[in-house]
């Protein structure tokens, strides 16, 4: 590698470098300032994230094969970079207030968020199994810590430990799968695997098949597909709420990015047969996620289960296995990040501290007492339920129409049924907010700071605007998916 190509490669990881530098800066600055000023880290991090976002806009569309084909910057990677960065930005805005309330205002929190995001970006751009693994680990380890960040609270530590143990277990599967694939094909790069699969009959190659299966077990764990989802409710509930919001958006998007890239680039030929397996997983994931969410009385836990179901919807797009499906999945991931973070933000505002929980009872009569919070929550829940004219509807419509176009009628029926059932528990919260009398003791939402207000504003505008004018984002997703289909 000559200097020229190295410099060019560096250009491909500008956002990563910015985030890393910001993370380091936050860590060091944290040592210099007194405890009560630590909220400033959120601001510093946000500046870093916004700079990174601009850098994506600047050179995100250029296609660069970086570091001898380990990593590629293309529109596809940029799309997910934007998803991750936007989720991160919203999370930072929520965290500042939340950490004050819960007494966990520390610089490390923000640094870990930033480092974890670097991992996500690497994963989204990775074109080699090594870099995918690197990104995955870089993504996961800070998240393990963040889940247990509120270490005085038992549930937080419990969630973190469970997540870590199972995560390590699943990573083992993933790595083993990669090793087997390497053994079978002699390549770690996705294009190398594709070249092998194009030449040989992979259907008879046991090593290859086992490797593929284990690879998807590892991915399935990260995006919490059934039956690899068991950690999700515990980890989501234990984690500090902004972290939960972030986990449901950023890492999921990044892992799906890797899955899509692997499916499209590495397995273009062996598709139909792998997709059949994913078909079953998608149906299971949607159903288990929704059915479990039906009986939850804790809103945070309910949203955790619902996030499992949403991963199932996204998977429907992948099972379609064509451009339209991929585009729909990408659109949905972006929109899902916005509406889910928004919903978690309201949940966070209305709780009386992590210790007291997030019982649905807290939502009684909130709609009239705090009309703005109630209305926003309704918007997010309606969108999660896939009711027009919100972005959630457009997303689901796209996913399912892609599936229908491919003739996956049964899967669509399962999906639409699930979507109908999900509305029950989403709207249950709305019923509590608007149709039940208030509780005797008053729920006081925590003071809404500028950051939280801004985050809510962005999420709401996004959910509604993308529902009515989805065209821009959709064409972005389309050109993104094209960028890997053609390469």
């Amino acid at each position: 590698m000559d200097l020229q190509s190295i410099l060019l490669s560096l250009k491909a990881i500008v956002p990563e470098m910015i985030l890393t530098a910001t993370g380091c800066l936050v860590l060091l600055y944290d040592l210099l300032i007194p405890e009560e000023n630590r909220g400033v880290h959120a601001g510093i991090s946000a500046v870093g994230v916004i700079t990174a976002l601009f850098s994506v806009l600047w050179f995100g569309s250029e296609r660069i094969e970086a570091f001898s084909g380990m990593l590629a910057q293309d529109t596809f990677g940029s799309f997910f970079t934007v998803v991750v960065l936007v989720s991160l930005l919203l999370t930072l805005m929520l965290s500042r207030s939340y950490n004050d309330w819960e007494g966990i205002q520390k610089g490390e929190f923000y640094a870990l968020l930033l480092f974890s995001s670097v991992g996500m970006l690497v994963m989204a751009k990775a074109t080699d199994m090594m870099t995918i693994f690197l990104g995955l680990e870089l993504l996961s380890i800070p998240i393990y810590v963040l889940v247990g960040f509120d270490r005085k609270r038992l549930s937080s530590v419990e969630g973190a430990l469970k997540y870590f143990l199972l995560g390590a277990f699943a990573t083992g599967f993933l790595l083993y799968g990669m090793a087997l694939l390497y053994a079978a094909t002699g390549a770690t790069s996705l294009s190398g695997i594709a070249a092998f699969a194009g030449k040989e009959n992979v259907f008879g190659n046991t090593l290859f098949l086992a490797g593929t299966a284990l690879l998807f077990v590892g991915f399935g764990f990260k995006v919490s597909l059934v039956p690899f989802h068991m950690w999700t409710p515990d980890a989501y509930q234990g984690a500090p709420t902004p972290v939960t919001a972030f986990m449901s958006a950023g890492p999921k998007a990044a892992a799906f990015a890797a899955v899509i890239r692997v499916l499209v680039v590495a397995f273009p030929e062996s598709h139909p047969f792998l997709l059949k397996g994913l078909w079953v997983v998608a149906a299971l994931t949607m159903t288990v996620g929704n059915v479990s969410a039906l009986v939850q009385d804790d809103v945070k836990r309910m949203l955790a289960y619902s996030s499992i179901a949403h991963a199932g919807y996204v998977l429907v797009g992948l099972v379609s296995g064509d451009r339209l499906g991929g585009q729909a999945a990408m659109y949905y991931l972006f929109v899902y990040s916005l509406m889910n973070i928004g919903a978690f933000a309201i949940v966070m505002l209305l709780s009386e501290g992590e210790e007291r929980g997030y019982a649905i009872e807290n939502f009684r009569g909130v709609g009239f007492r705090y009309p703005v919070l109630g209305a926003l929550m309704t918007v997010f829940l309606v969108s999660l339920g896939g009711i027009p004219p919100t972005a959630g509807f457009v997303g689901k419509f796209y996913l399912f129409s892609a599936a229908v176009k491919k003739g996956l009628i049964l899967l669509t029926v399962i999906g639409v049924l699930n979507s109908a059932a999900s509305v029950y528990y989403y709207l249950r919260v709305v019923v509590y907010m608007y149709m039940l009398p208030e509780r005797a003791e008053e729920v006081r939402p925590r003071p809404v700071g500028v950051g939280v207000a801004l985050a809510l504003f962005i999420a709401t505008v996004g959910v509604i605007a993308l529902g009515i004018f989805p065209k821009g984002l959709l064409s972005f997703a389309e050109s993104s998916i094209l960028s890997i289909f053609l390469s």
Partner: protein
Amino acid sequence: MLRILWLVPALPLLGVIINGILALFFERPLLLRKYYEDLEKGVHEEDSHGHGAEDHPLFHHWYRQLVSITGPSVVGAAFFVALVCVLILVKRPPHERVFQLDLFTWIQSGEFRTAFSLYLDPLSSVMILVVTGVGFLIHVYSVGYMAHEKGYARYFVYLNLFTFAMLVLVLASNYLLLFVGWEAVGLCSYLLIGYWYEKKSASDAGKKAFIVNRVGDFGFALGMFLLFWTVGSLNFSEVFPKALEMWEAGTLTPAVATAITLLLFVGATGKSAQIPLYVWLPDAMEGPTPVSALIHAATMVTAGVYMVARSNVLYLMSPTTLTVVAVIGGATALFAATIGVAQNDMKRVLAYSTVSQLGYMFLACGVGAFTAGIFHLMTHAFFKALLFLGSGSVMHALAGELDIRKMGGLKKYMPVTFWTFFLATLAISGIPGFSGFFSKDEILWRAFSSPFGGKVFWLLGTVAAFVTAFYMFRMVFLAFFGETRLSPELKEHVHESPKVMTVPLMILAVLSVVGGFVGIPPILGGSNRFEHFLEPVFEKGAELVPAAPHHFSHSLELGLMVLAVLVAAAGIYLAYHFYMKKPELPGKVAEKYPVLYDVVANKYYVDEIYHAIVVYPVYRFSVFLWEVFDVLVVDGIVNGVGRVLLGTGQAVRRLQTGVVHTYAVSLLIGAVILVGYLIFG
């Protein structure tokens, strides 16, 4: 000039924004609590009927006055714009009466394109005029009816929002946008049913409506997907010609057409309260009465009929679906009418009556007489809105009393309400000259003569007409005629409603009387201009209709018409006989039967036997239907599905033990299965 069409939905949306801001600023609960505490003090000091509110400073607050202006006026303006648009449209030659206003592209990918665009043709013209026209009157009425409510601006926000959503529904140029309106009107409906959320029954009813409608929407969504999959488009301007082309080419098979239309019809049964998904509508009467009038009688519940009529081309491809639609419509018409006989709550009678009348409209669609269905939709909007508003006026006067057994003799206390209500009752009963007569007769004749129809459908409709006349007049006689049975303190309180409420009643009464004149059939010397107006919409589909097997003579048509009138008259007479002439009869029978000794000793021997053999069983059967079928079976199924799902959820929850080992084992099993599948599968 037709480009101003966008104003029609935009104006109510403007109202939502203005009233929403006012609601946000002035109806914050903390402020209201104080207001209400003061108000309650005031009420106790002055009189017991809530008139103290009018002296409260907040009551005259400028924001309420502003809401009273903006709320109705935006809808009024929308009506005006709609009228202008329709007049321009009518000026064009019949085959050019289609106008599509593209606002912007909504969803586009590849060749699939769906736009936010408005579609004006004779069918949507009728709908927007009904929605904005009747809507405007109900908005005005609400100003008086809701004057004492604390959430005054909130109410108008919902009502404006509803109007907006309904206009989107009927003006949509594609199924997707129609679905947007479809869901949005549902949402407004739940919000308004649960308007008095403090009442548990109200919030329960909201929930019930919601769940039942989800079942319907599920069908609708699937139908839409299937249609998209088959035809490749969802735009009205493309779907129908393309479907016809494919039909002729044989690529669209009758089986697929049946599947699509049946699924869409499932959606329609949910929204338009047909068997078996009608259960939510009677409960929906928990909402404020003007809401019942607008949403649950005149407009929203007719969306299903509109959708079926809009999709007439598809429906005509599948005689199977048409038969299903007609059977369900006819059965609902009769079934709901018999239940109406046993109800004593004024609004409940009207609710079942609405279900029954919607059944008529579907019966019409089911026999391929879409024009007749839409015609009845329009006249029904007039007289049913009037009936509901009239009952609201009664309720207003009687401090919330709705039990017709406790009324009586209201005629002299509230003459305007009585006369308007009476006219509407004549209309719904199908008395010649009134609007309901023309539309109902059209349906009955088509049910008899259409190639898709049959004598059974005609019989169903005619019997239902008989029952309708009976229960409607039973209600009128019990409530307005005879001796008053009001409690003394109510008697003092009873009064005619204010002008702001009675004027809309009078306008609607005029419409209920003359509304049918646009569709006088040729046999009565008219030219059925309504049918000619709608003709271009149904023309394409008409090519699919097989030629009538045989021609029916004019005398037969006339004869059936006379028969229908006689049947209605018989119903009225029966009601008169039992509830006016011998008002003690029904009560006595209900109480004393079956003590045969009493009956024999009684001088109304014949009457009572008749009563025992005919009326009493019908009455019991009606109660039985209501109690057993409605409450147990249908509710049971609806709740049962929910319970099964919840039970599964509980079972799955048990799997979530919280023990890491279990989780790891689940992961391992999953991995083993996946690996095994890929290697051996």
